[in-house]
């Protein structure tokens, strides 16, 4: 047996695919050989078939669009509120003493506990769903931004002072670049929670959306439809996270250089000037 060539193994994409593809093949085989009950645990081929039929009828895209629209609006609202409030409490000790205890108390409430109240206040349609998603996104972003500002290296800020930067220039040239990496991480965890809460919101009752497909599949006994929706969530989640990372990549290139120099597989020979002695 010949091992896959080095170039395939060293490709991080290929490595990441080994586990799920192997699992899918084994599962497919087990289902065909009758080791698992295909009606409740449909094999990958059935899930793909369902996904395909949903896609050609256009149904899938309607559901995806509905889910993504809710998520987008909720994410933007929650992220903007989290960034603004996190920046305020991170930058001002007074604001932190005034606001942070309350925000932390609210954070201690499981977000789903708000659902009945939101439905009473905002109705059963979009507003209550978006409010729930926004709440879910808000807390990790708030915490992340606040911590990022608190963690700014005072010594670096002092360099800005020594060069007499105006407050605006200090913000633009020192503070923002310093907090950006942590902020991107908090936005990513906020996005993850956004996905969690969009499902929760749609399970509460929706006439369209991937969450509706989940619920519909449960009620009509269609596990393949449930798994198809779950698969769609996985793909969408990965795409959104990847898009978020890609959007900030140009500003975080200086971190990439570190990852590359550490990870041996990605280390390319860089044409470098000869190192002079100190």
């Amino acid at each position, binding site marked *: 047996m010949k091992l896959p060539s080095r170039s395939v193994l060293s490709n991080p994409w290929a490595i990441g695919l080994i586990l799920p593809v192997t699992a899918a093949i084994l599962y497919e085989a087990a289902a065909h050989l009758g080791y698992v009950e295909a009606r409740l645990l449909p094999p990958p081929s059935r899930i793909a078939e369902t996904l395909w039929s949903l896609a050609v009828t256009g149904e899938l895209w309607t559901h995806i669009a509905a889910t993504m629209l809710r998520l987008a609006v909720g994410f933007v609202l929650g992220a903007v509120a989290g960034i603004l409030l996190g920046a305020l409490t991170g930058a001002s000790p007074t604001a932190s003493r005034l606001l942070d205890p309350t925000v932390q108390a609210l954070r201690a409430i499981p977000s789903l506990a708000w659902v009945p109240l939101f439905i009473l206040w905002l109705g059963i349609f979009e507003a209550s769903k978006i409010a729930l998603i926004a709440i879910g996104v808000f807390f990790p972003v708030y915490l992340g931004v606040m911590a990022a500002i608190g963690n700014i290296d005072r*010594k*670096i800020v*002092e360099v800005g002072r*020594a*060069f007499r930067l105006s407050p605006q220039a200090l913000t633009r040239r*020192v503070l923002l670049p310093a907090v950006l990496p942590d902020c991107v991480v908090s936005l990513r965890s906020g996005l993850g929670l956004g996905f969690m809460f969009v499902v929760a919101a749609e399970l509460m009752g929706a006439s369209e959306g991937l969450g509706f497909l989940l619920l519909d599949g449960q009620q009509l006994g269609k596990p393949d439809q449930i798994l198809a929706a779950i698969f769609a969530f996985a793909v969408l989640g990965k795409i959104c996270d990847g898009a978020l990372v890609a959007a900030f990549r140009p*500003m975080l290139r200086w971190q990439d*250089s*570190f990852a590359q120099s550490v990870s041996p597989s990605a280390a390319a020979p860089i044409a470098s000037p000869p190192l002079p002695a*100190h």
Partner: protein
Amino acid sequence: MLQLESLSKSFAPNVAALADVSLDVTPGELVALVGSSGCGKTTLLRLVAGLDSPTRGAVALDGEPIRAPHPAIGVVFQEPRLLPWLNIAQNVGFGLMDRSAAERENRVDAALLRVGLAGYGGRWPRELSGGQAQRVSIIRALVTEPKVLLMDEPFSALDALTRASLHDHLIGLWEAQRPTLLLVTHDVEEAVALADRAIVMQPRPGRVFADIALDLPRPRDRLSPAFTEAKRVILAALDGSLEAPSPRQKAKHASGAWW
């Protein structure tokens, strides 16, 4: 001319970090502030930089009082403190944002060349060794052509060989630009290798203990008898600075146990 006039700094009431330090530094002079830890060297430097304000007294550069960071005063910290998100060229040009892009590029390239880092402009700070990063930090302070350069133990984190090579770089830069240079150090050899004058400080509270002229010819030979003798004089002064009673204790002795 840089003038320090009876500078005092207390961080808490009755805890004086610096008491009544007066010093005149002539333009282009290279002065080393030497002392054991806790004698207020760094505090003094931060006051001159305008990063902290004195409890009493004043700093003046050519008659102009310094109360905040000043364009004619550059600072090099103990750590390189490069901005990790800027490449080396951008770090060096950090204080040149008000100049044209072409001028900035020329100055940055010339400065990198001078300290043996030509071709490093596109690198990131984390790719540099400690000695390289500190060289970048020194030229970052010097490209704006300040009249005064303040250095706070800039070589203390480096190994002896790197330190000696950075001494040569620093002297080269200083001779080319001739800024007034105030260097804080706890390394007596460093003071003798570099300075025209060593100010030995005394701790608790920080004061000037001795002002020692070092008129050895440059380039300095670290093995020459004159070099060794100068080191001995400074070391003796340092010993003296630790033994001498502080004025407060002297007063106590004089008045007996007043309580």
